């Protein structure tokens, strides 16, 4: 071999022009075939079939058991650390990832594990809320923003994904309707009163109640316990079913909060319309916008409400758990559509509003405070991309027919693993 390598003479000679031309033709033909294949990759509903696309290192990552790794990472990080080690360990972590320890409201040794420290709360008042109509829901880096054109959202420059693939599409013939679930509480649309558990309240009374209380504090909402939610509305056995995740008994305190959100939103509760808003039906003179915020490992990992809005439903898409770092976003097409995510859909004063927390390998668990039934990153066979379970929050507020949220109100967060 050594002799052959060193002693074989190299003889260079030009290729005929025809070979180069044939090569170009072959490359063009391959591109054309790929393009035509893309056009026909549709499912029975006419939706594009999402597949792993990208350079070879993306396919190597796709072959890894990312979900199992993510869960293992979660278990490891829930291991309770010795009290003497906690301050040192968390300080090392904070120095490595740039956490500001002055912002946390508990002593370092009170966090039993790295997972608990990662999901830390902040001191009240360390995040002043701007008066703008839209504020940041999380600490992080703005990756991208812009206008949604032709239902295409730009992931990075030149790479787009379809909005329907991100948020899901309405499925007719859902087994449980809003009307069936709301039989014990209803809103009379054309008259300004609401009937709750047999008692009629005028909306003036409800809003008046709110005016009489402290306008700056946010009353805490009664949350359903996990067992209540599961008993009242067992989770669906298969993908595509709908169930109502909210089992909150409405109280006057809740109603005062809801009325406050209604005022902030600039809508009168009695003007609720039937059905829910959709990204496909925007009002004349309006446009659809998007923004993507990336949370790095050291960032505070809870997310808050970006505006005053009402969450009407959530769609949980079980997917893979690729990294969502800017490096990966530039290489893997449809990254946000392939990953496990929770699409929270609703409305604000300008119409449709949607917020989608997207998980990743290290933070695969998405928690939503007002939805105790939601479980993400669970063991099991992966459903096809695009399949989701849907929960509606119509019982959360009889006035607003959804879960009302005020600007910067904590909504949930990402947990390790």
């Amino acid at each position, binding site marked *: 071999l050594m002799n052959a390598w060193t002693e074989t003479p190299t003889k260079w000679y030009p290729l005929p022009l025809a070979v180069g031309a044939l090569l170009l033709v072959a490359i063009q033909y391959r591109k054309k075939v790929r393009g035509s294949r893309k056009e026909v990759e549709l499912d029975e509903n006419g939706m594009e079939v999402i597949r792993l696309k990208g350079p070879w290192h993306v396919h190597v990552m796709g072959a890894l058991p990312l979900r199992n790794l993510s869960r293992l990472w979660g278990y490891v990080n829930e291991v309770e650390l010795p009290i003497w080690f906690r301050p040192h360990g968390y300080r090392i972590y904070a120095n490595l990832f740039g956490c500001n320890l002055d912002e946390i409201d508990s002593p370092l040794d009170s966090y039993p594990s790295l997972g608990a420290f990662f999901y830390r709360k902040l001191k009240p008042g360390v*995040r*002043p*809320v*701007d008066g*703008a*109509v*839209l*504020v*940041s*829901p*999380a*600490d*992080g*880096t*703005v*990756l*991208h*923003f812009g206008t*949604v054109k032709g239902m295409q*959202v730009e992931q990075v420059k030149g790479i787009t994904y379809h*909005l329907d693939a*991100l*948020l899901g599409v309405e499925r007719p013939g859902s087994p449980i309707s809003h009307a069936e679930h709301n039989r014990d509480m209803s809103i009379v649309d054309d008259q300004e009163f609401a009937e709750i558990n047999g008692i009629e309240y005028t909306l003036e009374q409800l809003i008046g109640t709110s005016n009489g209380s402290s306008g700056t504090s946010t009353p805490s909402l009664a949350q359903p316990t996990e067992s209540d939610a599961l008993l009242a509305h067992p989770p669906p056995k298969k993908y595509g079913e709908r169930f109502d995740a909210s089992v909150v008994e409405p109280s006057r305190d809740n109603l005062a909060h809801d009325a406050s959100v209604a005022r902030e939103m600039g809508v009168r509760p009695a003007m609720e319309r039937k059905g829910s*808003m959709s*990204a496909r039906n*925007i*009002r004349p*003179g*309006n*446009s*659809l*916008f*998007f*923004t*993507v*915020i*990336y*949370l790095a490992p050291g960032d*505070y*990992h809870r*997310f*808050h409400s*970006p505006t005053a809005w009402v969450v009407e439903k959530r769609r949980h898409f079980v997917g893979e758990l690729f990294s*969502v770092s800017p490096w990966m976003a530039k290489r893997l097409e449809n990254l*946000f559509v392939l990953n496990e995510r929770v699409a929270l859909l609703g409305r*604000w004063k*300008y*119409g*449709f*509003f*949607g*917020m*989608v*927390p*997207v*998980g*990743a390998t290290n*933070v695969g668990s998405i928690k939503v405070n007002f939805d105790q039934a939601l479980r993400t990153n669970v063991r099991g066979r992966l459903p096809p991309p695009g399949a989701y379970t849907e929960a509606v929050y119509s019982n959360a507020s009889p006035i607003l027919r959804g879960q009302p949220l005020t600007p*910067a109100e904590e909504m949930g967060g*990402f947990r390790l693993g």
Partner: protein
Amino acid sequence: STVVLVFEAPADFEFSVHAGQKVKVGHRLGD
């Protein structure tokens, strides 16, 4: 992890951030 916002707003809505900018909870995104 990532948070994606998709929303309807008047056509003259303007973002007040730039790509790559660090933001914190409550920071103005647009108006």
